[in-house]
């Protein structure tokens, strides 16, 4: 989550205050959506990704994970791309964002584990927006996506 950009596009996260590099080489994405350390973001887009038309500008909290199977469909069935789900703390808008190459895997797992504690009501609300949060039985898939195939999934997970 950035609040100040330097001349090279690097910024300091307004949530965890880490300095974040904007280099494509590190992130693997052209435009960083969130801080790779705390995974928080800003609510900047309104109609489409990158349009920067939102006036809300509230902080967006990472609340869970989903799987992007195809365009506009987020569900784990036969694999897909692991995505972060953000929720605006100001207006409640949900958005789904790609995970960057240097996003902290531990933080992503923390977000996932916290999301497993969500009530049925919250999950229903997300599903109303077309976002299907990953559940406990998909833990192995999350590990595989984050650490690669053949990773040993901890027993407590």
């Amino acid at each position: 989550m950035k609040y100040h950009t330097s001349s090279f596009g690097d910024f300091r996260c307004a949530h965890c205050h880490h300095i974040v590099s904007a280099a494509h080489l590190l992130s693997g994405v052209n435009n960083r959506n969130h801080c790779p350390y705390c995974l928080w973001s800003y609510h900047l887009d309104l109609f489409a990704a990158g349009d920067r038309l939102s006036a809300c500008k509230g902080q967006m909290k990472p609340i869970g994970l989903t799987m992007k199977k195809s365009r506009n469909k987020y569900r784990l069935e036969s694999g897909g791309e692991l995505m972060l789900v953000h929720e605006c703390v100001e207006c409640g808008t949900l958005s789904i964002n790609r995970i960057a190459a240097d996003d902290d895997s531990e933080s992503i797992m923390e977000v996932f584990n916290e999301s497993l504690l969500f009530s049925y009501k919250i999950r229903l609300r997300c599903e109303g927006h077309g976002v299907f949060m990953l559940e406990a039985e998909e833990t192995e898939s999350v590990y595989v996506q984050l650490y690669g195939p053949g990773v040993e999934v901890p027993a407590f997970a």
Partner: protein
Amino acid sequence: MNINDEDDTGVVFRKSLGHYTVHADGREIDCVLSSLIHKQLIYPTADPTSLRPVVQAVHEIEHVDPVAIGDRVRFVGAGQSRGMITEVLPRLSKLSRPATVPGQRVFEQVIASNADLVLPVFSATSPTPKWGLLDRYLVSAEAVELPALIVITKLDLAEKNPQLDADLEPYRRIGYPIQMVSSITGEGIDEFKQSLHGRMSVLVGKSGVGKTSLLNAIQPGLGLRVKEVSRGELGKGRHTTTYLEMFDLDFGGSIVDTPGMREFGLWNIPADELAYLFPEMANHVGQCKFGMSCRHDREPGCAIRRAVMDGGISPHRYKSYMNLREEL
């Protein structure tokens, strides 16, 4: 006319490469500039009552061109329809932008002076309208308190841009008048002529939007130089008009044709006052939690951001505001 005659006054109608065409009493005078116009003479202030003040210093006046189209000027005739401009009379209004001269300090470039109406011209399609540029024109007009009439040309091609009406809706809601015209079919031309009657108007817009074609449509033969939009480089248009010129209109009034402007910066607008130049935002200024200190960016309790989220202000206009604010 003798060079020793008393100074005459006229209006600058055309300028090109250091030559200015001045209209005065039905005559057309080809003028050059007096070097005095480029300079400011500094007199001693210790004794202002002195009968014979002596020039202490001469400062060069920093501007791209001290004379603009529409200026009322004083000139001395040199015979054979030639003359020399000696003074620019006070301007009633001026439309300016920063001159883009690489590697130099930024100077003011007055596009036209003493105008009554600004006409931002955009084509319905080809080149694709950039509404951020329209916002720049409108802000520049608001800054000098000039009314604006948005002109959409190539109405005959409007069906190729189904988004056009939705894009124009925020401007209609604000209250900006919009004139849709087609220079090919003549649609909207009569209404457009009525809007120009008795006023001095300035056409501004990108290359290829059809400014000169529009002139030909309202008065055949007015702007003779028309080209087709270039095919390469995404139909950006190529420059047809390469110098500024003002034309008298048969039905009353005058109009300034400008070369296409792909860039249009804001001149002399303080960042704190920018929101006032967006009419739909002006009422919200001062209502924010941080009052007049609010930059309407990420401050909590911002009334303008709230109005955008409530639908009172177009998000596109708000984005334009933020983009312009970053420049100032």
